C-alpha cells in the first residue's frame, strides 16, 4: 500500500472504512498535534473545505514523521494533494494509480460521475483548443505556459 493516498468513493458507505480499520480515523475539527504520534491515519471527509495548500501543509507534516495517510473524500480537488489515487464504487476499486495518470482518464472519470479538479479540467479544455500540450496540476505552471 502506498503511503500517500487519496481515495474517492462514488457511493460512500461505512463499509469502506472497515477495510482500513487499522488506520486511526480522523473526522472534522481535528488538531494536527493529536495526529503526530500515530502510525497510520485515515481522514474521512475531514479535509473538506480546506484550501489545497492547507491540505498539502497538513500532509507534509505527517510525511515528515513517516506517518502513512489516506484521505477518503468525495471532493476531487483534494486528489491533487497526494501522489496516488484510488477510485472506489461501494467496495470495489474502479481505477487506481499515480494521480496524474488517473486524471488523464477524463472520459472514464466523467462517465462514473466524477468531476476533474478545476485546474485539470481547464487544462483538458485548453488542450482541446490547442492552447497547451499537456495537463497541469497547479495554476502557477499553467499560467506560465499560457502567457510565457
Amino acid at each position: 500500500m502506498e503511503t500517500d493516498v487519496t481515495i474517492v468513493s462514488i457511493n460512500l458507505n461505512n463499509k469502506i472504512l472497515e477495510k482500513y480499520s487499522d488506520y486511526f480515523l480522523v473526522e472534522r475539527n481535528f488538531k494536527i498535534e493529536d495526529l503526530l504520534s500515530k502510525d497510520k491515519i485515515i481522514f474521512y471527509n475531514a479535509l473538506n473545505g480546506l484550501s489545497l495548500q492547507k491540505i498539502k501543509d497538513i500532509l507534509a507534516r505527517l510525511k515528515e514523521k513517516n506517518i502513512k495517510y489516506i484521505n477518503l473524500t468525495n471532493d476531487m480537488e483534494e486528489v491533487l494533494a497526494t501522489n496516488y489515487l484510488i477510485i472506489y464504487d461501494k467496495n470495489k476499486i474502479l481505477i487506481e494509480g499515480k494521480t496524474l495518470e488517473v486524471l488523464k482518464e477524463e472520459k472514464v472519470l466523467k462517465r462514473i460521475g466524477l468531476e476533474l479538479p478545476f485546474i485539470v479540467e481547464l487544462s483538458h479544455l485548453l488542450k482541446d483548443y490547442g492552447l497547451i500540450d499537456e495537463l497541469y496540476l497547479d495554476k502557477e505552471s499553467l499560467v506560465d505556459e499560457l502567457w510565457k
Partner: protein
Amino acid sequence: MEIKDLLDKYGIIGIISTYKSSFNQTGLVKDLNINNISKALKIVGLESDILNMNIEDLTIKEKWKLELATKLNNKIIIIGNMSKCLNYKDKEYIKKLLIKLHDNFNKKIVIIDNNIKSFFDIVKRIVVLKNKKVIYESSDFYDDNLYKYTEMPEIIDFIKYVNRDKKILKETTDIYELIKDIFRSNHK
C-alpha cells in the same frame, strides 16, 4: 437582514455554516411518511427498488437524497452538507432540481454548507452565519471579504491570480466563458 427576509428577496440563498441533519428515521423506506413516495424518490434521483430497504443500509448519498424527498412538499426547503455527501454528477442534478423547484413551484431554497463551492453557482445571495446570527452577506462572488469565512472556488482563485499582474480576464463563474477569454487573450 433576517434569513426570512433574504429568502423573500432572493429565493435561493446559500449559508456558510455547519449543518447538522435532523433526519434520523429508521425502518423501511416505504414506511416513511412521504406523499406519493415513488414519485418523490424519482424526483430526487433514487430508484424505487430502495422502497423495501432499511434506511440504515442506504449509502450516505442515498440517505441524503431520501432526506430531500421528505422535504419536497415544504414551502421552504433547507438542505445541507451537499459537498460532503454527494459526488459531482449528483450535485449537478440536485442543483438543477432546486432551481426547477424554485422557478416552477415557487419554493424557497436554503443551502447550508461550510464549503461555498458546492452552491455558489446557483444561489443569489451568500450569507455567513455565526452563532445563529448573520455576520456577513454578499451577492458578489469576487468580493474578497467573503473569503475570510470560506475557501475561494478555484475558478475565482484562478482569475484573481491571473488578473493580479495582467488584468486580462473577465470575472466569471463559468469555465467556458473563461476558456473564451483565455483564447482571446492568446490571440491578440
